[in-house]
């Protein structure tokens, strides 16, 4: 039995206000965490904050963006009060456009075969290994997996990538786009990501009397006990802020007393 406050595995302290508390100290090092969310739920902001907090602690971080141009992303990151442009200049934060990476690897095609997938894994692992990345975000793994036509290949891709990154001690957030975050929804687009990932953080909206409240819920996290409650979130210049969602207000209108 561990004394209170001590953990069996070292943690990657996310630095996200409240999230480390939910995770009883942070994400176990080397984990691959799926951050699944509906549009506008704060996935990208969460991923960016994870990196900036890491850079703030002197860690090398990498972000692969497939959903928005890196130029925009680097512009948006400035909203964080704890961001310093030196983090980028000094190479602590490295943002890569997936389009550019595809182009460099000759992968400007609509679908990837096994060889392409391995090239992509090799490239990502190469980057992580060469610059000693300890925090990685891929935004989004859904966009990337759309190019991989077979479910088996998606599974192989995520499994191999996760395994190699874990070996390098890199904690990874794979951002996944989902269309619904309700009780019956899948936590990933292809259904395989959620099984491969060490952890799943779901982000979505609860509708309360016509208003959308953003929530975050840690559904699974291997290697640590954690809260599984829904937490309301706000995206602020100080980063993502969390508070437990009111129990009497945590379900959508259609499922609770409001709709009855």
């Amino acid at each position: 039995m561990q004394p209170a406050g001590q953990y069996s595995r070292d943690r990657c302290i996310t630095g996200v206000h409240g999230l480390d508390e939910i995770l009883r100290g942070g994400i176990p090092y080397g984990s691959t965490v799926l951050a699944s969310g509906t549009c506008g739920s704060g996935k990208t902001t969460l991923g960016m904050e994870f990196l900036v907090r890491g850079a703030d602690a002197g860690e090398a971080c990498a972000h692969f963006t497939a959903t928005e141009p890196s130029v925009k992303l680097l512009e948006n990151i400035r909203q964080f009060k704890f961001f310093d442009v030196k983090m980028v200049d000094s190479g602590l934060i490295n943002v890569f456009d997936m389009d550019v990476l595809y182009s460099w690897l000759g992968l400007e095609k609509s679908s990837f075969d096994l060889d392409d997938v391995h090239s992509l894994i090799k490239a990502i692992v190469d980057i992580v290994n060469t610059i000693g990345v300890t925090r990685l975000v891929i935004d989004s793994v859904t966009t990337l997996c759309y190019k991989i036509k077979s479910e088996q290949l998606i599974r192989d891709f995520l499994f191999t990538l996760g395994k190699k990154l874990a070996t390098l001690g890199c904690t990874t957030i794979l951002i996944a786009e989902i269309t619904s975050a309700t009780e019956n929804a899948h936590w990933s687009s292809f259904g395989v990501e959620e099984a491969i990932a060490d952890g799943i953080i779901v982000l979505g909206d609860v509708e309360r009397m016509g208003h959308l409240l953003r929530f975050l819920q840690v559904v699974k996290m291997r290697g640590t006990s954690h809260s599984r409650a829904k937490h309301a979130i706000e995206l602020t210049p100080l980063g993502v802020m969390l508070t437990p969602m009111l129990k009497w207000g945590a379900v959508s209108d259609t499922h609770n007393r409001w709709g009855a």
Partner: protein
Amino acid sequence: MASEFKFDKEDEKFFGSVGSFGVPKFDNEMHGGVPRGFTMIAFTETGSGSELFAKQFVSPAEEAENTLYISTNEGQAEIVRIFNKYSWPLDINVRTIGEEYNSNVLEKELLASRYRLEGFRLEDIQRLAQTRFVDDVTQDYLTEVTNEVMALGPYFRAVIDSLDFFLQREDPARVVAMVRMLQAHAQLYRGLVLISVSTDGLSPLIKQELASIADMVLSFKVRTIGTDFETSMIVSKFRNAPENLKILVFRVTPEEGITPETVERIA
């Protein structure tokens, strides 16, 4: 009715109604040269001397700035070497599509396979992290070439050697449409266009279409006679002058380049 271009009287006098092939003996055989406004398609065989003929065709270069030589296979250096060898004018416009394609596309592919096999080096990663946009290398050479020829003014002279590059990469219907546009442009501006296309692997349908668009069809052939090669040029179509249809055997001399043999052989 097609629009009509008003030509300068002095130009009309200077350029005349026919232009030289760049091969004096060939001009003689064709009763003075090639009529202005003609588009010629040259169907070629490997080693038949068509590349040299193409260069020779632009050598008269009545107006250097209005003369364009487009090569899809040779590089600038090789073209300059040949032009120097025969003392042909070097101030014409030359575009080497093959060379451009190699540097834009093939070099990129080579680099991609290096990255895939050997991985990224630190400096590659740093450069990758600084690169925000994908270089647009998807060039539409067919449109570019068409526009370039269409931009030439009255009495221009243009050569495309050869059409194979486009037929291998584009929809053949687009390529044929391009030839048709060039033919119309040549006709309107009394230009001279020579387009070569290899007969190896050319579909009969495309060949037929190209031949029907062209005002003049040439075929460059090579055969062995004993231990010698014999190169010949067959004029199989000459619009409105069937008397010009001929088979001309030629050789290549260091002084004149392609030179038709005017002595008729007895088989």
